């Protein structure tokens, strides 16, 4: 039981970081990406390769994950500069589909459908982190470190600029803001942090395959942000806890055959997304709608 809970806690920290990173794009930048799992994946594959071929050091692995995802985030920044609104959502959907195929096909790098297996237990500067408690501490440190960085940036001028262009791009530009650079930086920041989460994920799971980086995963992470409340610091965490605990809670519910738990869980969060958008579009942690 403890092992199960520790595992869940590690995942919650990793997904909390992932959801918070998507919040930079969606909540602050108004860049509605449905391809976040792609950058989680870039980070995870990069981290796994480093762990397998260099050393399973947490710092090295997360740095590699963040760097690779941050650089490749240009693939998302490019359409973000060209189009917005529905068009961008469609573009990111396209990116997600192409990336899923690429992950499956690029066997030398990603291991294809089988994935990369046998990732050694994590270390920190030579110290073993094989104990689940130790690795949980690392995950929590990454989560709160990441949150602190994002909080600092989002409460500062960078966050204000991002929100300004989210609320009115033309006005932001009229006040001298470099919209292209702001969007590129926001996308790079969000994706790099997603990459860090991906690196940790690879170490946590000890194997990675394409299943974790599909459209379903992107939508799950998006749901975490939306359900919790986009554009708030606490929202993504609330959403992550709710959506990660949901399957756990469902497994204790009588009457659901274990084989259907996945589908029932999907249906529940799909329904939650729809109902929330109809009745409380700002999310659970978000403030109720303004007067206008």
């Amino acid at each position, binding site marked *: 039981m403890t092992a199960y809970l520790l595992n869940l806690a590690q995942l919650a920290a990793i997904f909390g970081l992932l959801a918070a990173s998507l919040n930079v794009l969606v909540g602050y930048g108004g860049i509605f990406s449905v391809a976040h799992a792609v950058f989680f994946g870039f980070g995870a594959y990069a981290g796994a390769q480093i762990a397998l071929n260099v050393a399973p050091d947490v710092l090295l692995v997360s740095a590699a994950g963040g760097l690779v995802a941050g650089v490749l985030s240009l693939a998302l920044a490019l359409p973000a500069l060209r*189009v917005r*609104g*529905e068009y961008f959502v*469609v573009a990111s959907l*396209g990116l997600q589909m192409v990336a899923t195929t690429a992950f499956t096909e690029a066997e030398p790098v990603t291991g294809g459908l089988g994935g990369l297996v046998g990732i050694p237990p994590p270390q920190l500067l030579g110290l073993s982190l094989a104990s689940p408690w130790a690795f949980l501490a690392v995950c929590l440190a990454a989560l709160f470190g990441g949150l602190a960085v994002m909080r600092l940036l989002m409460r500062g001028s960078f966050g204000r600029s991002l929100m300004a262009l989210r609320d009115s791009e033309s006005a932001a530009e009229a006040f001298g803001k470099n919209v292209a650079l702001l969007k590129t930086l926001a996308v790079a920041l969000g994706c790099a942090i997603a990459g860090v989460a991906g690196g940790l994920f690879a170490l946590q799971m000890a194997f990675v395959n394409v299943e974790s980086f599909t459209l379903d995963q992107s939508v799950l992470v998006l749901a975490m942000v939306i359900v919790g409340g986009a554009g708030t610091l606490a929202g993504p965490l609330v959403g992550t806890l709710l959506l990660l605990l949901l399957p756990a809670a469902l497994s204790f519910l009588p009457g659901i055959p274990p084989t259907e738990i996945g589908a029932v869980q*999907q249906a529940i969060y799909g329904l939650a997304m729809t109902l*929330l958008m109809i009745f409380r579009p700002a999310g659970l942690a978000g403030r109720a709608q303004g007067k206008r």
Partner: protein
Amino acid sequence: MLLAQLLVSGIQTGLLYALTAAGFALIFGATRIFHFAHGAAYALAGYGFVFAVRAGWSWPLAALLATVLAVGFGLFMDAFVYRPIQRHTGSFFTVFVAAFGVVIVVQSGIEIGFGRAFVAVTSSLTRASAVLPGLYLARAFWIALGAAAVLFGALGLFLARTRTGIALRALAENPDLLRAYGLSARRLSALAFALGSALAVPGAVLGAATTGLSPSVASHVMLVSLAASVVGGIGSLRGAAAGGLVLGVAENLVVSVLDTQWSEAAGFVVLFAFILFRPRGIFGAALAR
């Protein structure tokens, strides 16, 4: 001859995509709602058809049930999801998330009811005959061609010649004008959803009778409709039809150079290229910002 064969099956896929995407474009053109859940109408129609045929219904009756399901779903989305959201915010992202939630619900409902594996009804539609040495055409091809010709023809006449059809096209541009003519915008929007969703039925039925369906068709068809609409130029029926054809052909032709895995991705590479280099699409006038 392989290339010609792939081209032909590309055209067959593309015609069905074209119809489905035209449904999406019709809805968007009339209501400005980006109906992300359009693929769920397709999935419901397809699985409804499979269910009915398995229950021993005749094909026409089963197709009727499929149509009822698709149309009912469209009307439901209009009245109970999109309209309440538009009443308070109407931000496109709210609409997107709500619609996506519905897609997930439909998809997992199907998974629970029919399982994750492919389902299909057995038919002779895939039986092919040679029209040229080495070039085979399945009966499904002629059905797809016929359905597309008849439906596009009827739709074109309806939109161009009838009062309601013209009003439907004017809805998005000038709702006030409609009121002056005594037409109800609500009724027209319901009509757009009904017609648009019905256009997904031929693809769904033929899909069930040829390649088979899996629960993820809902999101696949959604993506295809979106991609076709963007490639063709959003809101343009002609564009969506052309876009659907382009995507269907691209998906099939790519198999001649790359692994079949890439066939779905090929469509999205086309989509991505369009968004980067010609976001207004083939026929689109100006990019709506």
